[in-house]
């Protein structure tokens, strides 16, 4: 089932086109990594998919019953969060807000959903802890639990392992892969880490110099684009 369709999309950032004529579709259960150097338009595209920025041309469509507010989003951490006094429970619960509409307080359903997602990521023991006192890896898991509260079908992750040590990063990648395989959650991940991306993702979207490459991970490895890009990291 197709859930997302980008049709001849051109997007710009502060008046300059960052990429042009991008077309691809995403099926339920796909794992897409968006690669590219800084300034290649990865974040702009992600904002487009999230509905926060409008494309200058073309169309980004949600299909198969997906609606914008049911996308689970894991943004990059901001400076505000690092000294924010909040318990893990409060942070995770805030992920359920989009389903509440105008109702002001959390009900039993939201609390159960939060508990379930804490358990799913094996961080139930952190529930009462203070968010700012957690390690980087734990914080990412908490934010992932919040994103899972907001979605049943699509997760969008923005460079989720930035600042994590290699061991914790590996664990995090496994976790995402698990969610993708076991729960059939579609994943879109913006990443710098080409090696992990190719190893985990089913599809790769590579943005560079206004051109785009889209294909499965295997096709990507064989393509010219990857050779130029991967070359910098040596052979995989």
């Amino acid at each position: 089932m197709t859930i997302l369709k980008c049709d001849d999309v051109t997007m710009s950032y502060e008046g300059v086109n960052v990429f042009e004529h991008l077309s691809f579709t995403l099926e339920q259960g796909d794992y897409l990594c968006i690669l590219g150097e800084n300034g290649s338009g990865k974040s702009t595209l992600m904002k487009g998919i999230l509905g926060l920025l409008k494309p200058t041309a073309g169309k980004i469509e949600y299909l198969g019953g997906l609606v914008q507010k049911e996308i689970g989003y894991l943004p990059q951490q901001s400076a505000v969060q690092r000294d924010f006094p909040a318990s893990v429970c409060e942070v995770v619960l805030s992920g359920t807000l989009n389903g509440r509409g105008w109702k002001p307080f959390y009900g039993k359903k939201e609390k159960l959903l939060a508990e379930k997602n804490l358990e799913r990521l094996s961080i139930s023991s952190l529930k009462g802890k203070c968010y700012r006192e957690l390690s980087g890896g734990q914080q990412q898991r908490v934010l992932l639990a919040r994103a899972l509260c907001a979605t049943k079908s699509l997760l969008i992750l923005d460079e989720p392992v930035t600042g994590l040590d290699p061991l914790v990063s590996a664990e995090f990648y496994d976790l995402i892969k698990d969610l993708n395989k076991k729960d059939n959650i579609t994943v879109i991940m913006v990443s710098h880490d080409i090696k992990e991306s190719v190893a985990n993702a089913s599809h790769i979207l590579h943005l560079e110099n206004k051109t785009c490459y889209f294909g499965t991970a295997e096709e990507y490895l064989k393509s010219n684009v990857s050779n130029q890009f991967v070359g910098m990291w040596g052979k995989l």
Partner: protein
Amino acid sequence: MNYSIQDILSYTFMQRALIVGIPVALCAALLGVSLILKRYSMIGDGLSHVGFGALALAAAINLAPLKAAIPIVVVSAFLLLRISQSSRINGDGAIAIVSSSALAIGIVVTSMTGGLNTDLYSYLFGSILALSQQDVVLSLILCAIVLFLYIFFYNKIFSVTFDENFSLATGTNAKAYNMVIALLTALTVVLGMQIMGTLLISSLIIFPGLTAMRVFKSYKAVVISAAVQSVLCVVIGLFVSFYAETATGATVVCINLCCFILFGIIGFFRTISFKKD
């Protein structure tokens, strides 16, 4: 000088000060937590200066001060919010310009129309003697509105404060909630100016939240602690200023400062023992 608490409470001006002071302190503390975390502390300060300018203008053309100041400050709140969010202008600098200009215009207008009268003087430094019955009623109504909206939007305000991008992405209208916060702040600032004065009202907003954050670790605990502590500081401040014959606003701020230092010490020893574990 031997006044009992009953004696003090029998003075109308003390009754009014308490009736206005307690709810305003409550609102200020609640909003303060969000403002500090969103890095909007300067907006409160900027608004109070705009408030003074508005009052000076209102006095010059014989309008009821509070009623004239509220719309001007509310509009400025939206403006300051826009400025501080805009990446094109340096937000900090822009707010400083707006607030000092408003203060300067206020003072110029005042000196042209016959110098500082008692009303304006009391808005600059705060005075509990200047509260009229009308002010009290208006303050109570507005405080009730602020409290209701705050509680109603509590979870959304948390979400927007903690992570604006996430809220936006999941369909919460973060901009609208920022406006709500700005509107509530504007109302609180104008009401608080009566007691605390232009120059000190922002401390009523900032101190309780910052103090609570020294010690408490969940958002709810911080909010409740800030609210309780803010109300206590205002009540204690009012009584101390009565006994010691000191300026009310300044006394309240000094008591807030004591609280801050106390909580800071508690927080410091907590972190040390936390690290030892």
